[in-house]
């Protein structure tokens, strides 16, 4: 695909702000006790509380229909708030909607573009729509940062899906927002393009823009986010730093590949909750990485005492996906 950049190549930052050395504690988005009930009675969000700090990348994870897009719609003014309040950089999204919305850029899930417009015109239109005066230099910088400059005179219908996605990001950045919402940025795109999007978000991080993305791809959150929120059936189940989440809820598995098939798990190992594989050639031990004692040393000693010989040992960290599935299952 022309114009696509290898992930290792760094581009110029998309905007001119300098990178904050550390994520500021100042909230850019404050969601307080927000509920949303659609006409017909469907309750899409239930008493959601969420604070996003300036400069962070926040991933909102959840299965389809969990309420991710509804939450974004409420913040951006695409849906009416039923209960609660939302502030963007201190501005109420209902009462002070002009100031609140001026700080937000939204990249929707669907590739919704004006097919017959040129890239330059559609991005310039977005800047004007958000109340900013014409500034060709800003549009040029945004287009160049998204490798769209050589496509500026192309009509949108002639662009590939990946390029259209970039145009939507350019439109969202044209008014130099402080918060960028990416609603399922890589839904339905191929692996190469997904990595491209990750790279774009990585560049945004450099500029200090707060990025809030929704996804049901765990890998995406794992790759990009500073913090993760898990939403299921309209409730925010958990908000945690990604590393903390992995540490708290992460389990490791120790798989012991045996020399010879084992008839049964020795009785003195009953407390270890070991699983014997079907071929009886491996034992799996699950343990908590945060526990004071993992029990690995004593397990090894007891195996040696029982005369169980092994040829290999493999450890595996549970992925965010497994954590996520566990949380959602618990909720059910």
């Amino acid at each position, binding site marked *: 695909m022309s114009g696509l950049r290898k992930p290792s190549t760094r581009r110029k930052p998309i905007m001119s702000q300098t990178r904050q050395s550390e994520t500021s504690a100042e909230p850019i988005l404050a969601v307080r006790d927000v509920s949303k009930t659609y006409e017909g009675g469907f309750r899409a969000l239930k008493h959601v509380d969420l604070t996003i700090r300036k400069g962070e990348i926040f991933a909102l994870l959840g299965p389809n229909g969990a309420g991710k897009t509804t939450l974004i*719609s409420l913040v*951006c003014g*695409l849906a009416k708030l039923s209960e609660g309040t939302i502030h963007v950089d201190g501005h109420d999204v209902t009462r002070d909607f002009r100031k609140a919305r001026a700080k937000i850029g939204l990249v929707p899930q669907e590739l919704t573009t004006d097919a017959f417009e040129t890239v330059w015109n559609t991005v310039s239109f977005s800047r004007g729509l958000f*109340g900013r005066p014409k500034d060709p230099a800003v549009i040029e910088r945004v287009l160049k940062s998204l490798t769209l400059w050589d496509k500026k005179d192309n009509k949108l219908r002639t662009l590939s899906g990946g390029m259209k996605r970039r145009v939507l990001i350019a439109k969202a950045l044209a008014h130099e927002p402080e918060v960028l919402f990416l609603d399922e940025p890589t839904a339905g795109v191929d692996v190469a393009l997904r990595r491209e999007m990750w790279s774009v978000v990585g560049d945004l991080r450099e500029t200090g823009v707060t990025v809030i993305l929704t996804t049901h791809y765990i890998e995406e959150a794992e790759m990009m986010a500073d913090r993760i929120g898990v939403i299921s059936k309209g409730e925010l189940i958990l908000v945690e730093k990604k590393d903390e989440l992995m540490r708290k809820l992460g389990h490791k598995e120790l798989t012991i590949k045996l020399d010879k098939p084992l008839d049964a798990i020795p009785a003195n190992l009953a407390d270890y909750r070991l699983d014997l594989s079907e071929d009886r050639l491996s034992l799996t031990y699950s343990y908590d990485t945060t526990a004071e004692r993992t029990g690995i040393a004593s397990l090894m000693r007891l195996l040696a005492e029982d005369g169980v010989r092994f040829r290999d040992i493999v450890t595996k960290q549970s992925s965010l996906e497994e954590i996520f599935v566990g949380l959602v299952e618990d909720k059910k």
Partner: protein
Amino acid sequence: MNWHAVKAIYMFEINRAIRTIGQSIISPVLSTSLYFIVFGAAIGSRINEIDGVSYGAFIVPGLIMLQLLTQSISNAAFGIYFPRFAGTIYEVLSAPVSAVEIVLGFVGAAATKSIVIGLIILATATLFVDFQIAHPLWMLLFLVLTGFTFSLLGFIIGIWADGFEQLQLVPLLVVTPLTFLGGTFYSIDMLPEFWRDVSLFNPVLYLVSGFRWAFYESSDVSILVSLSMTLGFMAAAMAVIWWIFKTGWRVKP
């Protein structure tokens, strides 16, 4: 006021019209020319003068009004419906713009297009018939008020429509018949008394009548009644749009 946004929406819509200038202008000019040839020259030559005005000249204001109404409605309806259909409406709704600014942008552009078409048809009419405009400023006032009012109506239709069929429904089934029965091609004095009374319930009659008065100082109803009715329609359309944005009907779930 977010004037940058109003300008952005307005210019976006105007540029769309310029891109499709052929269908925007040639089609109404061609169909109006056919009306002049058929009703003005062929049939009109066999009809007596009405209020001292030749039949060909008499139908000029009505034909302009016919195109003004249909163009205003279809331009404004399509202008707001298409972003809804394509999904690009998300950007307008998430922007720091008020309902007034959205309406000014979309409706302003639709009204501009239809007024320009009205003026082009006026120029075209001079090729077919001789006529005078007694009150050019009143003529322009009615042109602008009617263009804006029916663009507001088109905007409402564009919000209401759930498909392209519905988008065509109101102009085809309501506006065109009302225009034909609103004195476009005749004076209501030519009708039997019963139908004359029925015609007074047709809102388009007041628009055509006021517009024709600006040309020939003859009208079916008083100019002040025409003006009041036009302003009344505009106020009613504005009230409906205010309600749409207040409740989020078909716009915000």
